[in-house]
């Protein structure tokens, strides 16, 4: 492009880095609210159904408190999602120009899911006196389903970027486009399941942590015990199945993106009986991962179900195609946090099976409180694995990110503005939620009217 040709090479490299960082920051911010938008409505609906069945007013109060939080967080998610849909073009017009026709379909479907979410959340939040209770619950269920459906469509598009199909390239132009073939890429299955379960898990533990915190300050408060119970009922099954889903996901990555798997595991050499590395520092110069705890044969077994299977190392691929080292660390942290949540859930589940209730001890509440951010952190690290692990490609092995970036100079400016915006918004959200928690139901009342 003309503007590009006149720019010095270094400025171009920087611009690519700025564009990628801005996209990464925007995604990293949005994903938290997207996950909450998937799972929070489910908590809210469970609580409302409990209110309708038991007529215990605690559940009604809890539903209303959760609904308020949902209203705030879904709105932030809607706004940050809008930013993303524009940013695809603002930052990577080269990608949209070619990929739009191939992969626009799931985005269009997502538009309708988003419509459903927005319409029914309006009815849910403002319609308490305007629609019958059964319809009110139905609106809440529609919000929960629409949120999950949005995720399915968006992840479908992402899966295509990781395993593109449904087109041919002729002279740099995408031809023979088959959008249906493109959006049914086999890479989507594990991504969708892994992310949906992660959303329920991460949101559940975050909510549980808030109520655990209140319970530590006001022991035995009945509303917050119920809240903790509902949240943990969502966390426990999700945390217990997630490692198995993660295993399935890594097998899919091994099959479709062996280079990404090698980068995740710090596997430089192509070898049979490859070890699973825990921690470790990948050294690209020496082509080895130092200081790792190695479990012999386990990587071969986990990837291909056979301890003697050959795992391709990074050395098999041209170095210019290697994803950044951070993929290895992000993967290790994701797995670590997932395992911590797994063990916490086993503890809670064992207690529940034995005594039909959650552990009551302060130690348990402290553990829940400290685990609160782990789920969201694991989601962030998981997306770093997927997205940074896809680099240097925007469309895997088809188009490099550098070919897609905008010719617009000075991308440092929007990057700084977005960072400031997201930092400001994060502080604001935390402050507003903190004030909400301070007036949580069942606590000594703070002055101030209800919505």
């Amino acid at each position, binding site marked *: 492009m003309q503007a590009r040709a006149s720019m010095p090479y270094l400025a171009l490299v920087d611009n690519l880095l700025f564009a990628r960082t801005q996209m990464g920051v925007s995604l990293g911010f949005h994903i938290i609210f997207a996950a909450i938008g998937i799972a929070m409505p489910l908590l809210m609906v469970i609580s409302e159904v409990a209110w309708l069945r038991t007529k215990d007013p605690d559940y009604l109060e809890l539903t209303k408190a959760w609904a308020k939080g949902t209203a705030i967080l879904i709105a932030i998610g809607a706004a940050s999602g809008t930013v993303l849909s524009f940013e695809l073009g603002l930052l990577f017009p080269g990608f949209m120009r070619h990929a739009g026709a191939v992969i626009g379909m799931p985005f269009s479907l997502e538009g309708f899911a988003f419509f459903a979410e927005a319409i029914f959340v309006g009815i849910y939040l403002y319609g308490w006196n305007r629609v019958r209770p059964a319809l009110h619950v139905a609106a809440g269920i529609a919000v929960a389903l629409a949120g999950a459906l949005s995720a399915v469509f968006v992840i479908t598009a992402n899966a295509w970027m990781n395993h593109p199909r449904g087109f041919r390239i002729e002279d740099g132009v995408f031809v023979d486009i088959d959008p249906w073939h493109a959006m049914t890429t086999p890479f989507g299955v594990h991504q969708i399941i892994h992310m949906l379960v992660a959303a329920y898990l991460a949101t559940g533990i975050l909510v549980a942590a808030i109520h655990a915190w209140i319970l530590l300050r006001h022991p035995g408060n009945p509303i917050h015990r119920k809240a903790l119970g509902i949240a943990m009922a969502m966390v426990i099954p999700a945390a217990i199945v997630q490692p198995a889903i993660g295993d399935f996901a890594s097998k899919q990555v091994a099959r479709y993106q062996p280079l990404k798997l090698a980068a995740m595991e710090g596997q430089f050499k192509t070898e049979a009986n490859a070890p699973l590395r825990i921690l470790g520092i990948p050294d690209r110069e020496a082509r080895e991962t130092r200081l790792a705890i190695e479990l012999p044969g386990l990587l071969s077994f986990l990837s291909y179900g056979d301890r003697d299977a050959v795992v391709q190392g990074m050395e098999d691929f041209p170095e210019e195609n290697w994803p950044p080292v951070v993929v290895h660390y992000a993967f290790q942290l994701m797995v670590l946090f997932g395992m911590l949540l797994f063990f916490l859930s086993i503890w809670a589940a064992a207690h529940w099976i034995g005594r039909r209730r959650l552990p009551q001890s302060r130690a348990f509440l402290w553990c829940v409180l400290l685990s609160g951010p782990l789920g969201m952190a694991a989601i962030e690290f998981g997306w770093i694995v997927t997205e940074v692990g896809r680099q240097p490609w925007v469309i895997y092995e088809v188009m490099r990110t550098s070919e897609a970036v905008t010719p617009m100079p000075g991308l440092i400016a929007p990057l700084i503005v977005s960072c400031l915006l997201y930092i400001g918004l994060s502080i604001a959200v935390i402050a507003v939620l903190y004030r909400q928690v301070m007036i949580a139901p069942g606590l000594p009342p703070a002055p*101030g009217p209800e919505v």
Partner: protein
Amino acid sequence: MAWVMALVILIALILYAILGGADFGAGFWDLFASGPRARRQRDLVALAIGPVWEANHVWLILVVVALFTAFPPAFAVLSIALHVPLALMLLGIVARASSYVFRNYDVAGDVVQQRWGNVFAYASAATPILLGIVVGAISSGAIRVDPERGFEVLTGFFAPWVRIFPFAVGFFALSLFAFLAAVYLIRETHDPELQEDFRLRALIAQGGVVVFALIAALTSRLGAHEEFHVRLLGSWWSWLFFAAACVVAAITTLLVVRRRYALARIFAAGEVAVVVAGWGFAHQPFLIAPDVTIENAAAPAATLRLLIIVLAVGALTLFPSLYWLYRVFKREPIFEELRRD
């Protein structure tokens, strides 16, 4: 099929203007809340848009996704040439949405809440101006690309929109939305005093609409692409649209003056619809005059076919849900029912 998609995008844009536009216009009136009933005016604005603003906002998303699926090069060109105003508009959208929920759900009544209210008001006023600037820049023919060389953008990042015409369209859009919102807001309360407040505001805003329409028309020659100018003011059917807009605007004004609010609401929406539709028809066959057309930017037939099917099926679920939403909240005002204190 490309023409069907162009029409769908235009319809979505019209719906965004008459629904989402009014929400921004309502926020604009938060900025100009005044007199003894200032606080009640602000609460009316907040509660009137509360149940519907998120749904109304989705029309914009639909426009964007339909544009980049059906006309990918057009989306890429706009993203490059209008990067700056689009990014600013996004900033406005985020600021409006977040400050609105913070204002509405935060512990009420203190300084913090008031500050969020201010952000909400300013963002609501700024965003439509930026939207108008984008629209004006698209129409003016100032964005030049080379369709032969992969739709390479030839013009700069500021030149296409830093000029009088796009800004005139920006303020025209703001007055149009403010007018629409004021007319809608009259029907959002039973309180006759509040109704009078917004009746006055509607009439003032309608004056603004006329003034900025004239400025936009006069400045449209400055740098506007010749063909668009000729089409907008020259051909017989554009006069038809022009006449229709004038007639509908006159009737709406009359209805507001004579306090026939139920009808006025419909005609105000009609006024905006005619304006946006006229703009869209003046544009064809261009998406971005004069180099990007509906034909040369269209996605392959396989994509368009599937997209139209998806949109048709989606519409089957969308419109009944929307109908339910508006029936629940827009038949009877919720202001008196939900107002705090």
